[in-house]
């Protein structure tokens, strides 16, 4: 399949030069070069954070971070994968952590040392406002932390770069868990349903269905389909 149309460009993997077809992602370029990646590849779809790669473009002095499975190579790119970050993570029992900032700072006292230097934001391969969520965490604005950090792929780059030695992503994870568990009010509808199931409310109907033949099941299905309503309500609108 290698034909004339495909243009080859040079890249440097840990200093060694390879010629690879242009347009590939860093991950595919490394594979084309002959690497069978063991560490440094997970989902191949930009959500797991396993493939973070440190790179420098020709003629620049900046070191950048990108997800290898998402970043397209450029000629004369210098690459090194960063498959593991030994970042600090506090150990806690989520049930006992409360929704106030003192519990967060007890677990992560270094949070208050943030210098507001924005290095983390500049390094984040997901382009998240990392400093923004760290600042929100310092203010105790948990909702804002959730909003700004929800796309975090836990790659650890922010922790590698932070001069104040924070692990921003682990702090955000703790806060998201606190928010999901302790701040969002419980759903009475769910409680009701759990009660019904515990009380065996559907048991009889289910037993009948298990004996039903295909035609009966289809009949029920058509009944349910006829009353199904809208596939989705619009979340934003509902909130207003």
């Amino acid at each position: 399949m290698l034909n004339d149309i495909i243009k080859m460009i040079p890249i440097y993997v840990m200093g060694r030069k390879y010629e690879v077809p242009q347009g590939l992602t860093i991950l595919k370029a490394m594979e084309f070069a002959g690497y069978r990646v063991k560490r440094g590849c997970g989902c191949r779809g930009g959500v797991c954070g396993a493939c973070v790669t440190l790179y420098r473009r020709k003629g620049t002095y900046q070191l950048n971070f990108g997800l290898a499975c998402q970043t397209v190579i450029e000629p004369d790119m210098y690459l090194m994968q960063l498959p593991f970050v030994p970042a600090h993570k506090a150990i806690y029992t989520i049930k006992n952590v409360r929704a106030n900032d003192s519990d967060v700072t007890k677990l992560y006292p270094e949070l208050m040392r943030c210098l507001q230097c924005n290095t983390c934001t500049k390094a984040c391969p997901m382009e998240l406002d990392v400093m923004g969520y760290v600042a929100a965490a310092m203010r105790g604005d948990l909702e804002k932390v959730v909003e700004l950090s929800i796309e975090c792929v836990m790659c650890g780059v922010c922790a590698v770069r932070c001069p104040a030695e924070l692990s921003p992503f682990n702090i955000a994870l703790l806060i998201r868990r606190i928010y999901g568990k302790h701040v969002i009010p419980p759903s009475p509808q769910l409680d009701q349903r759990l009660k019904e199931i515990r009380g065996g409310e559907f048991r009889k109907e289910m037993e009948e269905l298990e004996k039903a033949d295909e035609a009966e099941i289809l009949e029920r299905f058509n009944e349910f389909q006829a009353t199904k309503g809208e596939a989705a309500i619009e979340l934003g609108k509902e909130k207003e």
Partner: protein
Amino acid sequence: MAYSVEFQESLEKIEASRNGRLGQGFPSLNLADKASLLETYHPDFRMAEKREIRVGPNRGGVAPKELVDLLESPSLLIPEAVDLTKVDSRTDVLVIGSGGGGVTAALTAREHGAEVLLATKLRLGDSNTIMAEGGIAAATLPEDSPVIHYVDTIVGGRGKNIPELVEALVNDAPFVVEWLTSLGVNFDRLPDGAYYAHMPAGHSRRRSHSVKDLTGLEFMRVLCDEVRNREIDVLEFSPAVELLLDDGGQCAGAVLFNFDTEEYFPVEAKATILATGGMGRLHPQGFPTSNHYGATADGLVMAYRAGAKLLYIDFVQYHPTGVAWPEQMLGLLVSEAVRAQGAQVVNVDGDMFVDRLETRDALSAAIIRECGEGGKGVLTPTGMVGIWLDTPLIDVMGGEGTFLRRFAGIHSRFKKYGIDPIHEPILVYPTQHYQNGGIRVNVDGETDIPNLYAVGEAAGGVHGHNRLGANSLVDIFVFGRRAGIHAAEKIGRVKIGKLSLDHIRAYNESLVETQIFSEISSPMLLPDYRFEKTLSTVQYTKGR
């Protein structure tokens, strides 16, 4: 990148027809039409792509030929290479695989007092689960009930589901949502705390619970954090390569392989839980796949060699909307929720040809027909073909900002390649997505082999021949928890005898006796995309 000139003519037609299509539906298929569509166009029904299995518990049955190649290969492990008289590592429960199923089984077994070792091929959490975008099905809303969920699941599974497994699934589902919430998962909620749910294709009620389009990522972040908080022993980059049996034929652990040091080492366990996921990276029938790097059917191969029967393994799910362009994203998934939210499925001329809410199998078949015989697919510069998913309709219908609010992840991924799905449609083609069948299990995840459990995508039966959207995420938690509890309660009664790998020797011999000479060995562990294989993706749809 973005959309090059080749696409312009078709894009203009889509724009032109959009207003006329607004609010219009396409008649849904009646049962007879659906059946004939599937028979003719769905990859599952193309028998030429399947092969008979000539050895083992499923002898005489069929499976995708890529899987049969692995089942009919000798073991990667040379039994003599491990010394079973010196086993250093012992545990109550060995969990193999760290997607949602494995991590849940590990947490649950630990909670019920067992000592747990979690061994996984890649990093903790790297899995298909982390990639799930759409949501998790559970009948939590008042207008829904487990009974309706049951019926939908059975109809989706073409009536082949094992009834008691489905009953366990739908009854446990709301408890799973409660469990995940109690661990701190940030589900999409309404201000009063009610769950926001949507209705994927094939369901009759709104019941898919999401975390934006990052549902699996949020689950895995929380669950892996919990694994670390509970200080469960985790071995990363340590795939299992074969199961261990004892002289009484019970499962007694597994042989693991250290990717870094390339050593094999046995782990003895009173209960072993396989949660190794699916087979997407075998690229059945040459399709692209939405699956993660480690989805190579290892669990099926190991369990099969140890004597476990596989169920419905010839049924593979193709997700109708895998990315067909840009090339770098080939095969990745565009969540079903995009269609639920209003995006129509249209051909090169801007015409609808199928109801956007058909089930996955029917929609895949309709797209394959439209691109093949219909001749109405959109050709890409790399030789792929695809169909438009008209995403701009989402903001037109739901108001500006809807797409971004619901599909931030999809938006940012396409944006990298210069495509703006808020204003431009995206090009899709079916992609291998899910293994409908798997290792045969009962309601507690027990397989045919004593002390061996299988959960999640590696197990088969609950989804019949075809899984409904959002039903897999719930499956992995329901059966992960059941297997974890059952294993933890059983270990007190388990006595492991003398460890053995004789089943591997016997299996290898049976291959020779059947005159099968394979050039490969299995399990595969990782797909090989080196050198020009990197580029072969371009060819997947040739001749289709």
